[in-house]
């Protein structure tokens, strides 16, 4: 019960005797109430402002106003609950020199005592109250001295409002940093969520420990002490993803190479296979590889073409085992149709290839996702380290590798496994990077232009470190989404450009100018003399000579390059099928023809 028991006047006489005093007491009480309301209101408002100057809410006038008003209301309510009642007035009268006569009269009247002593005491008390000397009464207006506090507090309030908060820049920085960390944590959370949404067959490539660390990453970024620590966390996570990527990179590269090679193939089956690979559709891959054996009944030329494609694809693949698989399949295609044993072997190899390709596709897709995640981490780290604000970080996150279009564009660059030195010139991704990427290995454009030995293509251009090294005759688009956050901590910008038609092919075009016309010995015509060459045919085979019945012996003619090349190539394939070479030499032949194309 906040409200105290109020004492009313027990008798009219006493009330009248103390009426003047009561009025003055109440007036002084309300004046004092006003002073207290103002004092507390101003004090709380000033206190809030002063206190908030030490906090991020350094200029919160609204809160100060609310606090001051609340304090004023509380004081007013509290004072309203304890307005001086009759007993209080009586006590004040006694304090003014009545020596308890007033309170004695009050109590006796209250108890309605009727004995002569009480009556006399009441009479004396009322009389004393009535004759209370004027100079002892409560003054009409109290002293102004207590009001000085209000002036002082008003001064403080004005000063705190008008003077800038010295800690404001600090808190602004802190707030921006917190927002940046929150934005980074949010973006990191989105990246991690995308990783977590990977299908199980892709997710299995993500180590459990790394998965747990990634789960905790948004929180650790959010609660980091400062940007630097958050950036370190992000970089560490990105680096760990990079480590996983390093493991997946050969497969991913093989995938890109195969898909790129077969997508441009003349064989519809291989085109379909490329599409299935890119989709990562294991069933479709199995179906299509199974169809390879159906080609056993087709013409030898068709089988040869397919085998050539296989060989060529094998040559693009860096993984020796996979390359050997493709070679075997190519050989089995060439030799199929003859006997049952070869057919069974081909079937086994196609099944093995189907499994391999399906796994390859999943690894590639996982690698792609991981690459995007890693790029995003590095981008975020770079953005944080570069002092970007929350909005910029949010934009960074939205532009980092998460865009399917960027990935698609990047894929285009994979075709450019150019070996021609002149073809690498203009293959750098055309997407503008936000910062100059270093030559580091972690460009966001990792998904694009996977073939790149020329990681330095991104240097200084703001394009991805791995982007766009394509070139060569196929005109692979080398303009994958460049991002270019280097490992070295230089710029954190991430490219947002989607891959478009590559420009890298131009390099190849210019470099190939010397092959317009070519000497074609096969078209010389006429038979030559039989030539015998001494030596062993092949290691382990008997004989010291071989015959070359169609060896040209006359001068040939100059023919267009594109007319001659298929003939040369077909001849080479036939030769290889009839006279197999050791694998490394056979590889040289294929590499030669591949490079010509």
């Amino acid at each position, binding site marked *: 019960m906040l409200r105290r028991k109020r004492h009313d006047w027990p008798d009219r006489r006493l009330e009248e005797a103390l009426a003047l005093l009561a009025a003055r007491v109440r007036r002084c009480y309300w004046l004092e109430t006003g002073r207290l309301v103002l004092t507390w209101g101003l004090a709380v408002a000033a206190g809030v402002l002063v206190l908030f100057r030490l906090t991020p809410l350094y200029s919160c006038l609204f809160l100060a106003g609310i606090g001051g008003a609340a304090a004023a209301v509380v004081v007013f309510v509290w004072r309203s609950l304890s307005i001086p009642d009759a007993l209080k007035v009586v006590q004040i009268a006694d304090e003014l020199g009545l020596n308890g006569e007033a309170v004695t009269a009050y109590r006796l009247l209250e108890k309605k005592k009727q004995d002569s002593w009480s009556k006399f*005491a009441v009479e004396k008390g009322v009389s004393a109250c009535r004759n209370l000397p004027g100079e002892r009464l409560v003054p009409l207006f109290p002293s102004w001295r207590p009001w000085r506090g209000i002036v002082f507090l008003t001064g403080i309030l004005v000063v705190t409002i008008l003077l800038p908060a010295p800690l404001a820049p600090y808190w602004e920085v802190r707030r921006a940093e917190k927002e940046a960390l929150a934005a980074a944590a949010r973006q990191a959370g989105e990246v991690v969520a995308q990783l977590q949404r990977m299908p199980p067959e892709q997710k299995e490539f993500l180590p459990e420990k790394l998965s747990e660390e990634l789960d905790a990453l948004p929180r650790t970024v959010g609660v980091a002490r400062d940007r630097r620590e958050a950036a370190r966390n992000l970089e560490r996570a990105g680096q760990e993803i990079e480590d996983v990527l390093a493991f997946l990179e050969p497969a991913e590269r093989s995938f890109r190479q195969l898909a790129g090679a077969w997508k441009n193939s003349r064989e519809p089956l291989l085109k379909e296979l490329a599409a299935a690979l890119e989709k990562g559709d294991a069933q479709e891959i199995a179906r299509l590889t199974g169809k390879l054996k159906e080609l056993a009944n087709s013409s030898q030329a068709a089988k040869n073409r397919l085998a050539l494609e296989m060989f060529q694809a094998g040559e693009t693949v860096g993984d020796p085992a996979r390359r050997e698989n493709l070679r075997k399949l190519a050989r089995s295609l060439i030799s199929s149709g003859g006997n049952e044993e070869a057919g069974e072997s081909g079937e086994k190899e196609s099944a093995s290839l189907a499994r391999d390709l399906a796994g390859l596709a999943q690894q590639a897709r996982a690698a792609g996702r991981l690459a995007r995640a890693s790029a995003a981490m590095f981008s975020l780290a770079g953005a944080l380290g570069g002092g970007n604000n929350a909005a910029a970080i949010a934009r960074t996150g939205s532009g980092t590798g998460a865009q399917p279009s960027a990935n698609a564009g990047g894929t285009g660059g994979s075709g450019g496994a150019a070996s021609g030195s002149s073809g690498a010139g203009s293959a750098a991704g055309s997407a503008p990077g936000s910062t100059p990427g270093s030559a580091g290995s972690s460009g966001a454009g990792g998904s694009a232009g996977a073939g790149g030995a020329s990681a330095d293509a991104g240097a200084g251009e703001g394009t991805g470190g791995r982007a766009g090294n394509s070139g060569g005759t196929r005109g692979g688009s080398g303009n994958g989404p460049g991002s270019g956050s280097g490992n070295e901590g230089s710029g954190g910008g991430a490219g947002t450009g989607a891959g478009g038609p590559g420009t890298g092919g131009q390099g190849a075009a210019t470099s190939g100018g010397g092959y317009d016309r070519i000497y074609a010995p096969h078209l010389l015509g006429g038979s030559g003399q039989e030539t015998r060459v001494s030596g062993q045919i092949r290691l382990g085979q008997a004989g010291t000579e071989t015959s070359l019945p169609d060896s040209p012996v006359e001068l040939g003619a100059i023919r267009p390059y594109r007319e001659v090349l298929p003939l040369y190539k077909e001849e080479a394939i036939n030769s290889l099928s009839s006279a197999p070479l050791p694998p490394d030499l056979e590889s040289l032949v294929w590499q030669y023809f591949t490079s010509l194309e």
Partner: protein
Amino acid sequence: MPDYTGSVENQEVKEAPSAGAAGESDASREDVPGILEGVKNRIKEMEDAIAGVIVGQEEVVHQVLTALLAGGHVLLEGVPGLGKTALVRTVARVTGLTFRRIQFTPDLMPADITGTQIFDEKGADGPFRFSPGPVFANIVLADEINRATPKTQSALLEAMQERTVTSGGLTYPLPEPFFVLATQNPLEMEGTYPLPEAQLDRFLFKINVSYPSAKELLAIADRTTGAAEPQAPSLLAPGELRGWLKLVRRVVVVEDVIDYAVRLVLATQPDNPRAPERVRRFVRYGSSPRGLQALVLGARAEALREGRPQAGYADIRRVAPAALRHRLILSYEAAAEGIGADELVAEVLETVPVHQ
């Protein structure tokens, strides 16, 4: 009961038809203002009469008369020669009451005060009869009370509290009114024994008698070394003081004033959280409820002697030092630091607000 009254002069006192008697007879029709005015004037006469003998010491006289009105015993403390005995003798004379003086010495025995059984083979009630001691008087001056042993000092306990004396298995009432006005030398003096706390508590007031001023000394020299020593007249009629004692208890004291006295008493107790810090530090034992009784009775007496029907806060404050100082048992730390009870009582009065 043995007839001892004859051995005590003026034992049979008659209550005068004073205002007090009238007040008791018909409460609703009594003339209270007249009674109060009469008492006030009579006490003023008494003060004037005493002042004719005792030079200065107005405050001491005032407090002694207040204590008499309140019906309490008084302990006067002061070095020898300050007129304590003369004051008590004068007061006794002015009040017209029987007076006995007992000089306390180390070899004084309790029976020397209260009386003893003596052999009387012709006695009607047996071979032994009670011979009353000097305590059987209206006003007993226990001079230098702290020179007797605590055992002898304690002989006064029953007399002061119960106003009776027990001897030989029989209890004898003391005459009404009965006042013990004791004097004591400061405890620092040689050959003194401190009064037991229980007995100290039975004194309504302890009044400190201070040295007279130069002007007062001049008057003392003039008044006491002349040919005629002044004598105070006996002013009060028999029973008049007894009537006043009853009037004192009719003075109105409302609960607000009593509450103030209660808070003062509580503030002297060191274990009370509202006690001043110095009280908690220097006081071992605070005032007992008798202290509260002394405050309220003293305040009533103050009001009566000023002709007021009610006692107020100022009356409480006025009697507080005399009523409380001997009830504070100070610690050794206080003694070491020279802190006195008066200082602490003053602090209590300073810190306890009149209104709560």
